[in-house]
């Protein structure tokens, strides 16, 4: 018996400290994790998800535990804070905060960044194939043009789809007015003949195989697609794109909070944040990391939009009970 225990002890990994990380799929490069493990002796256990809903549902089932570090987007941070699911960050353990870009701090979903810090950020706007479009695309309204029958890609995300419709009607993407929401639904219904596919997992592939001509896409995906096929152009519609920030937070009942802080601080190192941003294709919220990046990325307006365009963007916020109305219309849209 003693021998077995001793053997198990000897065979147990060199790491005695672990951190359970739950992140978006393809959102953190292997080399970053390996570097951290080597340096700190903390084992990183990574699992991945592909929608905020799944993250939120899992954390709820696990009663805000199970993971030490998770990456919700904008309005989900707000939701988690209001439901007391998060642990306040211990800033004294995070000296690398000083590198962060002030433009991405103090956003409405967590005004003092008590619970969250930005990890990567981006926006959703229009990607189109210059070769297959007769005129310039400049507005969300262009998606409704009859010439694009069965050739539009829409993100399979209720809030993003409604944002396109609401904004093209001149309303806020966060509208809670039943009348406006209904109008937006009617407008989306009129868009259905043009929609070839709803997809938010890999819009890039669908553009590259030329199944669609234009559509709503995330900027990082658009950037990667345009590297393969330069005729794919990313434009910011005149109505304004939606801006989102994927944050890092620590669930309230996380077991390894110390390790989580250590990893979070590591992620905010300029060199590390640069590697992440370069490989994933989304913008770093880290001022010092941005300075280290290649001009082809740093000056690329689809990754780092100029201030004038950024001011025109809207952040999706938690809309409370109005979300039930959105859901109802979203279901109706997909039943027809």
């Amino acid at each position, binding site marked *: 018996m003693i021998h077995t225990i001793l053997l198990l002890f000897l065979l147990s990994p060199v790491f005695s400290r672990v951190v359970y990380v739950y992140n978006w799929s393809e959102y953190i490069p292997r080399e970053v994790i390996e570097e951290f493990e080597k340096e700190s002796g903390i084992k990183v256990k990574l699992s991945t998800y592909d929608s905020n809903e799944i993250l939120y549902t899992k954390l709820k089932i696990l009663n805000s535990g199970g993971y030490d570090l998770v990456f919700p987007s904008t309005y989900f941070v707000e939701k988690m804070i209001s439901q007391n699911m998060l642990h306040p960050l211990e800033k004294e353990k995070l000296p690398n905060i000083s590198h962060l870009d002030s433009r991405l701090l103090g956003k409405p979903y967590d005004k003092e960044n008590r619970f969250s810090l930005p990890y990567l950020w981006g926006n959703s706007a229009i990607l189109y194939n210059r070769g297959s479009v007769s005129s310039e695309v400049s507005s969300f309204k262009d998606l409704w043009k009859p010439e694009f029958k*069965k050739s539009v890609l829409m993100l399979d995300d209720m809030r993003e789809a409604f944002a396109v419709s609401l904004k093209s009607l001149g309303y806020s993407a966060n509208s809670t007015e039943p009348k406006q929401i209904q109008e937006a639904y009617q407008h989306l219904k009129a868009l259905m003949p043009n929609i070839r596919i709803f997809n938010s997992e890999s819009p890039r592939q669908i553009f590259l195989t030329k199944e669609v001509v234009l559509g709503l896409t995330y900027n990082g995906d658009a950037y990667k697609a345009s590297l393969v096929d330069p005729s794919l152009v990313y434009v910011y519609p005149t109505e304004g794109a939606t801006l989102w920030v994927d944050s890092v937070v620590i669930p309230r009942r996380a077991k390894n909070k110390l390790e989580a802080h250590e990893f979070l601080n590591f992620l905010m190192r300029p060199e590390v944040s640069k590697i992440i941003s370069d490989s994933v294709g989304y913008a770093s919220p880290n001022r010092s990391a941005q300075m280290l990046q290649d001009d082809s990325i740093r000056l690329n307006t689809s990754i780092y939009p100029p201030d004038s365009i950024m001011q025109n963007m809207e952040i999706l916020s938690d809309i409370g009970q109005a979300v039930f109305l959105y859901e109802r219309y979203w279901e109706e849209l997909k*039943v027809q």
Partner: protein
Amino acid sequence: MRKILVGLSWGWLLVFALIPLLMLFVVSFFHRGVSEFFVVGFTLENYIRLFDPIYFTVFFKSVVLALVTTVFCLLLGYPFAYFMASYGKSARSYLMILVIIPFWTSSLIRTYATMLILRTNGLLNTILLKFGIISEPLEILYTEWAVYIGMVYTLLPFMILPLYSAVEKLDRQYLQAASDLGASPWQTFIRVTLPLTLPGIIAGSLLVFLPALGLFYIPDILGGAKSLVVGSFIKNQFLAARNWPFGAAISVFLCLMMGAGIWLYLWVKKRVSPEEARS
């Protein structure tokens, strides 16, 4: 020993099938919560909501999808099973292996592979264009056609296997007797072969129809997630909309429908097999 084994399998069923089903049943009568998955209470509102025309449409469309898939599988599977059974022993096992091989990979991966074949510049279009059969690439991916192709492809083996075992059991002397008595091949088929293989047809149809009702990733991946089927609808209620009571109510309803299907099968089988036994 036997007692232990029986007890174990009952325990297994209890823990992993019966209790979860019971939980589902109970939750289906609860209220919806804003920040919780459900609020304890009693309401029939989730079941009443099922009669809302839009959910009825979801059910109706899913049933049609499952039915059409079953019919196509039967039309393709019957001749295949019939000829497979009429081959020699070695050819049979060879064919059987061909039917089973696809199961070695995940059906999700096979669905993605189907996508590669069907897309605009995919394998199918490339071949058809090369041989001049079509001049414009066919638009199949992200249409209903793609969904049917994917469904039939995935579920066909479930039709072939029970059909094969029914056809194999068929005593060929009956066919000879029928033709000796002057029946045409068509008459023999309709009046002898078909009734004798009916249990296989029903078993195969159920094995295709029931999973076809619940499969959601094929319509999502190959159809472009444009129209909701009951499977993705339930998934959405649990994950995206987080309306567990309503999701549970739909699941219970679906279970009842499937239960009715199986009951029907047993009923028909009872009526068919005495004849089989008599002969």
